[in-house]
């Protein structure tokens, strides 16, 4: 597959939230405010893209030659966690303005399964470097898009009248179901 078609499918038709259920804990739990969701999505995008590149390089130039590919889960988790930490330090020192808006979400992202999920999918799908880049940027852009749209819908949901047992998480899940139907062609 060409990188461009990978990019387009990973943004829309194979969106990681709506079809692979990656990173839905913060998606359901935290995305109440439009602005917060946007910043959160942006930081996820940054972390996914950077950590995909690093883990890809480590996998193909360290783990494969030394025949220790079974260590990839541990390795990737370590890389992601330390990279998030480094990024936080870097932003704090050199870009305090961005750190103020994004800094809050960075520690949370270290344990976001979207990041580990995308890095593992890059390896499982046998992508070359360009395809990997297209897939990571595409998936994280899809994540940003969905989490933003979802937050705006939830702002409207808060003021509407919902049956008591469906209030909160169940109605959010139903909203996600409808979005999933809209975005991904099924029937």
């Amino acid at each position, binding site marked *: 597959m060409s990188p461009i078609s990978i990019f387009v499918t990973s943004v829309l038709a194979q969106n990681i939230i*709506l*079809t*692979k*259920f*990656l*990173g*839905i*804990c913060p998606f*359901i*739990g935290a995305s109440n405010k439009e602005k917060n969701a946007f910043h959160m999505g942006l930081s996820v995008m940054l972390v996914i893209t950077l950590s995909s590149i690093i883990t890809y390089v480590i996998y193909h130039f360290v783990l494969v030659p030394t025949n220790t590919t*079974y*260590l*990839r*889960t*541990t390795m990737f*988790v*370590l890389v992601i*966690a330390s990279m998030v930490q480094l990024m936080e330090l870097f932003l704090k020192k050199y870009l305090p303005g961005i750190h103020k808006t994004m800094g809050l979400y960075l520690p949370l992202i270290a*344990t*976001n*399964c979207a990041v*580990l*999920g995308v890095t*593992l*999918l890059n390896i*499982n799908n046998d992508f070359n470097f360009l395809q990997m880049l297209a897939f990571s940027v595409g998936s994280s852009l899809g994540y940003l898009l969905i989490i933003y749209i979802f937050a705006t819908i939830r702002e409207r949901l808060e003021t509407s009248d919902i049956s*008591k*047992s*469906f209030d909160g*998480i*169940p*109605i*959010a*899940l*139903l909203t*996600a*179901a*409808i979005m*999933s*139907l809209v975005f*991904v062609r*099924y*029937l």
Partner: protein
Amino acid sequence: MKIILNGIFKENPMFVLVLGLCPALAITTKFESAYLMGLCLLIILMFSNVVIAIIKRIVPDAVRIPVYILIISTFVTIIEIILKTYIPALSDILGIYLPLITVNCIVLGRAMAVASKESIKTSLLDAIGIGLGYTFALMIIAFFREALGAGTITFMDATSSLTGYKAIYELPTTNILPISILTNPAGAYIALAFFVALFSKFKGGKKHESH
């Protein structure tokens, strides 16, 4: 016993705490993969909770989370290797959702909330309770999704290389069944939404009785 029951009903990780959704939605298309995923999580949670409860005094607070994640990912890797050697069909079905247990909110959450504070025995019992609660929740969702969505109930298929026989039941098709949307990702969200709503209704009713 009380701690175990607490994990299954009152603090059911899926329906009440609503944690660890990623694998729950993705692999509940088949009954078999659901309970096997639950068992994998149960085993990993038990080992990691016990190990963390043992070493909790040695680990400084500043590096707590990285150390816990490392311990969890070690057990995940062990399970991954075992599955790949003995039940390769299952490891194909679970795919990336098995390594994703490493960053599952339930396992890390239990490590932070229980294993880093309580005794070894309490942590083990809590792990069993939460693990069983998670497994039951996965089984219920998968049962409905597969029975209504695909018209089958798979008890044993991928593991047949290990046990020697298959067990797949087929339900009769009528004009409304199967509802194929339930096996799609959208169906996963719908099914989970209804179960969470049902549980919160049920729990609310119970509270009134006890008052």
